[in-house]
């Protein structure tokens, strides 16, 4: 495969829509101007499991301005098997906070007030929301295969014998809590039925998924559903799948045909209705020889899913890719609980799995008396440790070396004593990052050219705030071999050719590859059919995403190395991270400005994961009780004084015609472990359960 030469690519362009967003001129889904909007407010269950015995809507219905009340008694029957989406289909309640009704009204205030007047009587049943006891009592199952290319069960060699024979062993459990996505823009929808046509403005990462899911649920032809998503205010994965809020909005719109129903989840509801990252309990066992060369790696992960559907946080996914080992064992199990179904969240699997693996590697470095950078270099594989395929490119060693140089890493033995400054204990830590190069099928692109040399690229892709619109235009200009100013990219409308989701760090990868094929085809036709001149009435081509002939032949992964400096107050245990530095190998970088934003954003989210974020489940009630941004802490400005992302030059011709690996997720991977390892270096305390809060470090 040849990759296209870079002219527009490589330039740190500002987002084309940045100025409009700052000025409030870029309408997000909820803000789209519509005539006579109606407003929706949801009623949610206040029990975890049981039955609705009765619903009294009389007070709500009597409020002036109320247009309708939805319950399971009058909701349309849905044509979907997805348990999470099958709301208002029966009197059954499957988790606390599930939608059990909704009010449509002339204003959002009336809708919210009236929703509070709907009286629901329940017959509760005992609920089970306890992952720890499910694990202890063995109420677990192996999840169905998550992605075929990444097995959930691996047995290579004989791990038990290798561990027994190892000179050095590390065995520990690591725990990560429940996390919620919390993009600033909540999940929002405008839904409007006109005759048999449904129009949706949705905050989504996947327009085609919205169209097909809604069409199936409401038994429509997909052509009856038009989806717009011109601008999206963040997502972190929560907006890849359709959630029940969209179903509720479409149901409500059916009650008031011709009117546009606006629905925005509250921040409380964002903790229940939009998926989340499951807590994990992970056991890692490492065996090594006296020089620190791994002889055995065993990684198990236990997680939760719901009784409505299955989603497994594939925490062990990265482990087979990381280090050379003759013996490898991977297990992945889930417990089905009376809770909402977990879902995709930034680097699903790798983010939490690499916290465990890279913490264990640090523990191994200490046990071997080896510098943790050196330990990783010693365990670099020459080919993929599981199947022996060569890596299309593997930049881990280069990232470790470059990161150590930039950070000023001091190689150390286990005996090195940390420093103390003004009452603060200071330490440094390192961890590796990785993320697979994914290829999401299902994209097409249309490219039009007019005789004045203007090109229009159409795709039902979406920019969720990452700068995709800008970077993908750079790709298109280089694919077409024209100036940036000649190219207009139109996204965010299902009237355009279908596009895969913005997810898996594979948006620009998949869409860009498709555009490259379209550009080739357009040039070929101009040359072959029109003698090299654009015809007077223009020309248009529509192409499919190309196959990658190298897919089976090579293992394709991005890598990185992250370094952190941590200060822990000797008397209060307060933790500060004055410095984070990451170096990444992500193939070509299309737009250094937006790519850097993705990388430092991921690293910041990793810092947040290390020190702050945790959704607190109250098992008696069955829901997350710190469901707002005042009590669910995320790292904010003062917590992130200096975060730097760099990359090494990496040309990889096997990936796709653009030569990119994706940068959206890798930044979060390894960040928490680097910080936890630095905390250990500073204090001697190994925290194996996130978040690392001051009470865990306070010397009594």
């Amino acid at each position, binding site marked *: 495969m040849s990759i296209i030469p870079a002219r527009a690519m490589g330039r740190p362009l500002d987002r084309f829509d940045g100025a409009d967003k700052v000025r409030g001129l870029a309408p997000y889904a909820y803000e789209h101007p519509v005539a006579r909007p109606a407003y929706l407010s949801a009623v949610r269950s206040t029990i975890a499991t049981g039955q609705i015995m009765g619903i009294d809507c009389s007070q709500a219905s009597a409020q002036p301005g109320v247009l309708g009340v939805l319950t399971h008694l009058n909701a349309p029957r849905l044509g979907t098997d997805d348990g999470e989406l099958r709301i208002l289909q029966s009197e059954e309640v499957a988790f606390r906070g599930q939608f059990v009704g909704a009010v449509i009204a002339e204003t959002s205030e009336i809708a919210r007030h009236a929703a509070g007047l709907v009286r629901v009587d329940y017959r509760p049943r005992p609920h089970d929301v306890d992952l720890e006891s499910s694990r202890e009592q063995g109420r677990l199952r192996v999840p169905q295969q998550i992605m075929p290319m990444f097995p959930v069960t691996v047995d290579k060699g004989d791990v038990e014998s290798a561990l027994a024979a190892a000179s050095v062993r590390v065995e520990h459990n690591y725990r990560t809590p429940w996390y919620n996505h919390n993009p600033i823009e909540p999940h929002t929808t405008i839904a409007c039925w006109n005759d048999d046509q449904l129009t949706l403005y949705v905050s989504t990462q996947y327009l085609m998924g919205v169209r097909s899911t809604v069409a199936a649920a409401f038994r429509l032809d997909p052509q009856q559903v038009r989806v717009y998503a011109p601008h999206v205010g963040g997502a972190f994965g929560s907006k890849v799948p359709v959630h029940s809020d969209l179903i509720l909005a479409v149901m409500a719109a059916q009650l008031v045909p011709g009117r546009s129903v606006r629905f925005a989840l509250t921040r409380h509801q964002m903790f229940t209705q939009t998926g989340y990252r499951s807590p994990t309990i992970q056991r890692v066992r490492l065996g090594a020889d006296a020089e620190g060369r791994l002889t055995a790696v065993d990684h198990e992960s236990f997680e939760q899913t719901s009784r409505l559907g299955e989603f497994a946080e594939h925490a062990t996914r990265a482990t087979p890719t990381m280090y050379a080992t003759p013996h490898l064992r991977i297990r992945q199990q889930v417990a089905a609980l009376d809770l909402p179904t977990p879902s995709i969240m930034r680097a699903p699997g790798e983010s939490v799995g690499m916290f465990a693996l890279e913490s264990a590697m640090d523990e191994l470095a200490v046990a071997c008396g080896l510098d943790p950078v050196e330990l990783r270099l010693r365990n670099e594989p020459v080919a993929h440790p599981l199947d022996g395929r060569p890596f299309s490119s593997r930049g881990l060693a280069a990232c470790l070396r470059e990161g150590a140089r930039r950070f000023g890493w001091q190689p150390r033995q286990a005996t090195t004593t940390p420093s103390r400054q003004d009452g603060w204990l200071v330490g440094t830590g390192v961890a590796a990052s990785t993320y697979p190069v994914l290829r999401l099928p299902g994209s097409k692109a249309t490219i039009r050219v007019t005789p004045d040399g203007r090109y229009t690229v159409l795709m039902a892709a979406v920019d969720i705030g990452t700068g995709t619109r800008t970077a993908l235009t750079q790709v298109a200009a280089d694919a077409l071999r024209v100036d940036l100013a000649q190219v207009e990219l139109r996204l965010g409308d299902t009237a355009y050719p279908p596009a895969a989701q913005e997810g898996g760090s594979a948006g620009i990868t998949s869409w860009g590859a498709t555009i490259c094929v379209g550009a080739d085809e357009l040039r070929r036709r101009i040359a072959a059919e029109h003698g090299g001149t654009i015809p007077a009435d223009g020309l248009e081509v529509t192409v499919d995403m190309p196959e990658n002939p190298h897919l089976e032949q090579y293992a394709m992964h991005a890598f990185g190395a992250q370094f952190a400096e941590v200060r822990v107050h000797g008397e209060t245990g307060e933790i500060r991270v004055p410095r984070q530095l990451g170096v990444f190998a992500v193939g070509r970088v299309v737009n250094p400005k937006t790519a850097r934003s993705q990388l430092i954003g991921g690293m910041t989210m990793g810092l947040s994961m290390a020190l702050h974020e945790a959704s607190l489940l109250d098992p008696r009630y069955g829901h997350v009780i710190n469901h707002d941004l005042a009590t669910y802490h995320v790292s904010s400005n*003062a*917590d992130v004084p200096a975060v730097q992302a760099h990359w090494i030059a990496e040309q990889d011709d096997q990936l796709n015609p653009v030569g990119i690996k994706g940068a959206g997720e890798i930044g979060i991977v390894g960040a928490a472990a680097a910080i936890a390892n630095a905390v250990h270096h500073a204090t001697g305390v190994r925290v194996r359960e996130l978040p690392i809060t001051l009470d865990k470090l306070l010397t009594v």
Partner: protein
Amino acid sequence: MRPFRYERATDPDGAVALLSRSPQAAFLGGGTNLVDLMKLDVARPDLLIDIRGAVSGVIEELPDGGVRIGAGVSNSDLAAEPLIRERYPVVAQAVLNGASTQLRNVATVGGNLLQRTRCLYFQDITTACNKRQPGSGCSAIDGHNRDLAILGTSPDCIATQPSDLAVALAAVDATVQTVGPDGSRGIPLTELHRLPGSEPQHDNVLAHGELITAVDLPPLAMAARSRYRKIRDRASYAFALVSVAAAIDVADGQVRDVRIALGGVAHKPWRARRAEDLLRGGPATEDRLRRAAEAELAEAQPQSDNAFKIPLARNAIVRTVLDLVEAER
């Protein structure tokens, strides 16, 4: 959220008269906490009486050398005021350690003192809470209580008072001036908030219709070298796990006088009088500070998740006062 009426009061007496006639009415200052609680259906006033035009929005020097802060002064203006920064830095530091710039710009001094607890269960109407719904039970005692109280708790409530400003004002012996249906009075700040006992629904001693009009700071020379130390779960805005407001007067190596108040540990700003008494009249050594702090915390009763607050509070007291002593040398 429920429908409500909104009225503006133009003078304290009018505001008090209006509220006294309406059992479900509430005064509105900046609204940064009250409006949130209304959206959550925790607070259900049928009438909001905006008192920003009824109470003073200025800070003035009193004839005795003290300072009077109008209840309508914004938190930002309070923290920026030179009189406060020079004579009572602990007050300015406490304000700047709370909330975000945007909130401080709109939040008022009176409202800050009367903000409600951030106990998770108080703010979630689908759970039991004696403060929100008397007699329903306390979900926090057997639930998530890491942030909650260790001192002065009751079997009915373990909530903490969230205001940083109140902790600093408790340390400098501030007095709250009020106007109510029965006239005006001055309440020492340390007596404004109460312990929960069997009536946790009452955060403070104010009668319905009683309006805070000002806060008076007495002249206190040692307050010029006072300090606020707040320990929280992140560097950015967050409520205190433990905070310490302190001022000390050391002469000839002996503690002549000292003020210590704690936040994040009780249903009210916790004035550490026992520690103060033990420190007066002896040297300000680390060892004496530690013993005084331990004596203050001797009766602390931790909850399942917050035993760490005892050593944290002890260490924070020792460090904050020692830093003051060392700065003075």
